[in-house]
């Protein structure tokens, strides 16, 4: 980035925060309408009962839990990019990590909705929390669902703090240029950041600490989510490979989502200078790795089902591949394992259209993966008498899923106009130091 200077960085990045145009408002309005639709559907479900969704016995978990796992998965690559790559000093992460981190937080916020939407009595959700009460009623600490509550809330707290910490110097930079409500907001949010050496020292060590703290969470949270399934005795769920398999899958889907979000963002906010093809190439390479891990996991599951000699397990896996929902399984294999292999070809991984298409399809494939594991496994468990393999996807479910996507995008859109989506601080770190004689706009 030879022609970039500190002032240019400030100007270019903070420009993205300027008063938005008409297109932005239309987009926000549409997304808000989508969220409202989702809210209406959820209201209908609460009013009428869970029967308005497509669930039944034996498939008592269906689209909501699938989507929950999907969003938790999306959340993971954000931390991977921001924390793990930070620790490994992967310089190419700099321009993308802020978006990835924001995506993490919003994905967790979206994911967190689904266990509530999924509850038969959503209004009693707080019973899942261990709060002191006079009846001494505590939640069941043996239940993986409770571990889930802890894992997801911990992950949300840490990733939100990590995002915020990294934002502080940038907010301060924005504060110095802003007026009106933005100035008041930034002043409050920058916590009085002045950019002194002591502050920078503390900032650096805190950032390092959070990076180190968040890194194991990437592994642990999705492992815990996978235990929702492995701790059960449902054939197709009860498997020791799930933790690494889910973590790899989470990163796989997270990378795909980062690419899916960044390509339009790059165009929209004219960030071509910061987000170069190289960055996308690195992400694509990482996707090849995670895709191969996921493919390996698929294979191992089948091998173990056969090798264990467990007839229930084998029946479930045969049903998964060749049963009435085999098409979903094969779609998932092609999308998640097949398509990322295209990125072995440099021409393809540098082509934004290919990148975007493959990423979107990987996202679809990862949703299908969770659906196949969760819903399809349940249709074929121990007693054949209760097998029931027809799904009825309802409009309420579709509305809630669509609403949740809108919710996620809306949060991202609002964030992108309020906070810098590319880290000013870290971009500057990568630049040669300016000469002292040059007047610097802003003091960050």
């Amino acid at each position, binding site marked *: 980035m030879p022609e970039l200077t500190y002032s240019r960085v400030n100007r270019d990045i903070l420009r993205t925060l300027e008063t938005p145009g008409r297109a932005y408002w239309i987009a926000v309005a549409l997304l808000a309408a989508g969220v409202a639709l989702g809210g209406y559907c959820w209201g209908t479900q609460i009013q009428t009962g869970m*029967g308005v969704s497509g*669930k039944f016995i*034996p498939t008592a978990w269906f689209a909501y839990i699938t989507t929950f796992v999907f969003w938790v998965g999306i959340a993971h690559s954000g931390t991977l990019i921001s924390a793990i790559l930070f620790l490994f000093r992967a310089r190419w992460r700099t321009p993308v990590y802020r978006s990835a981190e924001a995506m993490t937080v919003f994905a967790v916020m979206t994911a967190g909705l689904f266990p509530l939407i999924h509850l038969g009595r959503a209004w009693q959700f707080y019973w899942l929390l261990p709060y002191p009460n006079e009846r001494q009623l505590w939640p069941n600490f043996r*239940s993986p*669902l409770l571990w889930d509550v802890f894992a997801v809330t911990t992950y949300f707290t840490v990733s939100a703090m990590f995002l915020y910490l990294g934002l502080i110097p940038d907010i301060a930079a924005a504060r110095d240029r802003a007026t009106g409500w933005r100035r008041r907001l930034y002043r409050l949010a920058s916590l009085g950041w002045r950019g002194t050496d002591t502050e920078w020292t503390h900032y650096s060590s805190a950032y390092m600490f959070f990076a180190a703290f968040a890194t194991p969470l990437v592994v642990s949270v999705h492992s815990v989510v996978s235990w929702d399934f492995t701790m*059960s*005795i449902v054939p197709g769920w009860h498997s020791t490979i799930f933790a690494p398999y889910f973590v790899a899958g989470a990163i796989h889907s997270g990378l795909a989502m980062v690419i899916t979000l960044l390509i339009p963002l790059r165009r929209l906010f004219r960030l071509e200078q910061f987000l170069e093809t190289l960055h996308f190439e690195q992400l694509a390479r990482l996707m090849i790795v995670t895709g191969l891990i996921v493919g390996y996991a698929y294979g191992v599951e089948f091998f173990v089902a056969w090798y264990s000699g467990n007839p229930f397990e084998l029946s479930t896996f045969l049903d998964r591949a060749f049963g009435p929902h085999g098409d979903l399984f094969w779609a998932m294999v092609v999308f998640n394992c097949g398509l990322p292999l295209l990125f072995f070809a440099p021409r393809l991984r540098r082509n934004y259209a290919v990148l975007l298409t493959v990423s979107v399809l990987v996202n679809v494939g990862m949703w299908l993966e969770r659906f196949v594991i969760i819903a399809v496994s349940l249709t074929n468990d*121990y*007693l054949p*008498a209760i097998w029931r393999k027809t799904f009825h996807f309802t409009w309420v479910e579709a509305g809630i899923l669509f609403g949740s996507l809108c919710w996620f995008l809306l949060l991202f859109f609002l964030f992108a106009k309020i906070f810098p989506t590319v880290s000013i601080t870290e971009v500057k770190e990568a630049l040669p130091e300016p000469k002292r004689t040059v007047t610097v706009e802003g003091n960050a």
Partner: protein
Amino acid sequence: MNDAFNRREFLKLVTIASTGTLAACSPAPPQKVIPYVIPPEDVVPGLSYWFKTTCRECPAGCGMMARTREGRVVKVEGNPEHPINRGALCARGQAALQGLYNPDRIAGPLRRTPEGRLEPITWEQAEDALVALFRFLRQERRNATVALLTERISGATEKFFRDLFAVFPAGQVIQYEPFAYEALRAGNRIAFGTSEIPHYDIAAARMLVSFGADFLETWLSNVECARAFADARRRHERDAMRFVAVEPRLSLTAANADAWLPARPGSEAALALALVYEILRSGRARLSSTEAARIGQLVANFDAETAERLTDVPAETIRALAREFATADPGLALGPGVAASGPAATALQVAVNLLNYVCGNVNRTVQFGRGSNWDRVATHAEMLEFIERMRAGRVDVLFFHHANPVYALPPTAGFARALQRVRLKVSFSPFLDETTAQCDLILPDHTPLERWEEYQPRAGIRALVQPTMAGGFHFQSRQAADVLLRVVRRADATLSRPFPFENFRAYLENEWRAVHRAVAPEQSFAEFWRSAVEAGGIWREVPLRPVRLSDAVFRFDFSPALAVHTERDESFALLVFPTAERFDGRGANRPWLQETPDAMTKIVWSAWAELHPETARRYGVSEGDLLKVSSPHGEIQLPAHLTPTVRLDTVAIPLGQGHTSFGRWAADCGPTPLALLSADVEATSGGLLYGGTRVRIARLPVRRLLARTQLETSQHEREIARVVPLAELVAGSVRRDPEPRLSLYPEHTHDGHRWGMAIDLDACIGCNACVVACSIENNVPWVGALQVDRGRHMTWMRIDRYWEPAPEAQPIGGVTPLETHFLPMLCQHCDHAPCESVCPVYATYHNHEGLNVQVYNRCVGTRYCSNNCPYKVRRFHWFDDQWPWPLALGLNPDVTARTKGVMGKCTFCVQRIRAAKDQAKDENRTVRDGEIIPACAQTCPADAIVFGDLNDPNSRVRQLSDSPRGYHVLGELNTRPAITYLKKIRRSVPDRHPGEDG
């Protein structure tokens, strides 16, 4: 002679008579649950009171007890002391409660306006109209024909109606039952000179052969038969009973047989005669040689080869069966049920009688003198005669008393059309059924749970029906007999002498004075009456009345037995069959009967046509396709159900649906096959020809919802329902299957009680009685066909049914005989319950007595427990339950009704455990074994379910649980269920070894 007046005249009469008292409306019924200001001394809130009565859901007449709370019936159960059912009830009996509280009951008397509408009137108006009518008929139109068409009645009730209708110069009472067993009556008359339907001692038989008698479902007295069958099956030693079922479709009864012989429809008589032939030929008959020779001559045409040609059953099998049956001491052959009532039905019954006779079973297992008398029930031929009279305008006034012939007779009989020629039609039905909907005056009677009646199901039993709660609680119904008594006295003062009674109860009591004098003159009458009402009637052992073979049998023409359709063509035999749940259709408006899955097909809320998959392939039909089934007499459209349990040349359609006017739940459930039947009668007996019709089928390009609670029929070699051969059991070589005993957590200690259950799969007949009993006891809601199809049925108990090809069995007529496994599935109350550890809020946990407890209040509805339950017995409340008023009045107040969003499941009837423990505590003792009986076990006719304390080494449940036949379903998962299943016993089937005299 009838031109003197017409229908208009009658209507005018009814209208004018009632306008006079228009203002005098009856007061609103008291609404208070219990008036506490002056509390009644005999009702303590919170305590249950039991009233013994008699089930009137079918003519079998089982003893029933109604449990009432705060003046309302909340549950009915079998009367344990009653000789017929000994405490059990079938699904239909259990659902009687939904007849009582059915929201589609007629609210009060109705009258047809001149415009043809039905308008509500008061009871005063209604009675005034009847009084006017009675006066008119007795004084002005003495030649008018007045008839009462009633269900089967007996004892004092019958006498009452007979006497009452005798006040009209041309009055008559006709008893009508859709299943009137004409062939049994005629066959017995021909063979033994009596039309009595004998008592069949199934329990004593060592070999049972049923020729289309669905005795575990509807035949004669299904609960009684099931009880006896279970008793016989419990003999596991060398005198074990073997059972062979001959019928073209695997009915629930045949599914319980050791061998199912899918003979051609209508060929059963040939098979029975061939058995007689072979037994006589082999010299095994227990007869004098002269008699043997005479009978031999009679059956000379029916050698095993002829029978093979007619029935498809190999001659070898017939000979083996003959050998086995002849050596069984005693054996028992049972004659035709409804499905086998074709043109050869009487021939079949005569053949069955001969078969029993030559083997010496008559007067042993076939007991005349102890049976039931159906003489006064009209045969179908008599009904047709009556219809002819109606059509000719020779019936002026027709009263209906719990009979619905417009629905239950085939349309070809022309009842509905003939009814229009009847000048005045009066119905006492509590429901607006098809017949009542055509009536001019409707005076809703009480349901059997609100009225007085006497019923004599069979010789020696005088059962009482008594009100178990006050009538008129929501519907302004009045007992028909009470109304008639009042009317007849008001109509004519001279009739006060023969009918001096205030109400029917007084009449009944008076009638029983004679009974008292005959039975227990040493007691005071008050004492006798009280004890009879408390016991639900009186019964005594009746002596056998031995019969001898009548000479008429030697003149009997067996040619209908030879007239079997054996050609292969494009026509199918139509098999019309009743089912255990739906009977003749009189329970179709009970939602729980509609939602109870058919025992074999697991279909709910619909009629269906059964096709063999191979037939279906030939016609390009798949499951749920709409079929057009047409006979020369009519045509119906209904969805196809593909099943390997029916012959390739047969289409089987159940009775019981096709109501056009019987309430919301009876509507839109598919057609009735009656529309396909001919108007002919069976020549000898005058019976309705349920069988013998040929039909054609065509696929229509439409699919229909055919909701089933179970879709998969095979257990995929998972050994869920297990079997043990009888030989191994007798040899004592049966050992328990090993199970893991691993645990990370400390074991539950279960101090005090540890509740458990044992379910004997060899006893279970799959009849669904437990399913309905459980649902009624535990306020389980029904959800309708669409939700069942979506997998949201709510039953806490279900009967899983699996089919496997029967080992070593050869296909007969292209059909592979199947071995059926019924597996009652309910919460297993596991020690290591997979559901408990995954619940995040402890809504389900293991209590110290071994119950897996579900706390509805704590449940947030994650449904993880259901996913993790390998038995899938947990039921999630997808919606708020619907209890249309007044059905909610019948809810069990001891069981929490669940809200939407929570999980429910079997509790082992924890409310009953609680009640028994409270009782024991009050009496300062521990709970006795057998004191707690969950609803399912209570009603099981086969006594297959035993509940009790596993900690008590002497308890029945503990002893059964320790049986070598015991195993745990999915025990290999280390769930350690509290329910032990006892393996089904595979009895060697007679036709497997080649005969030594073949």
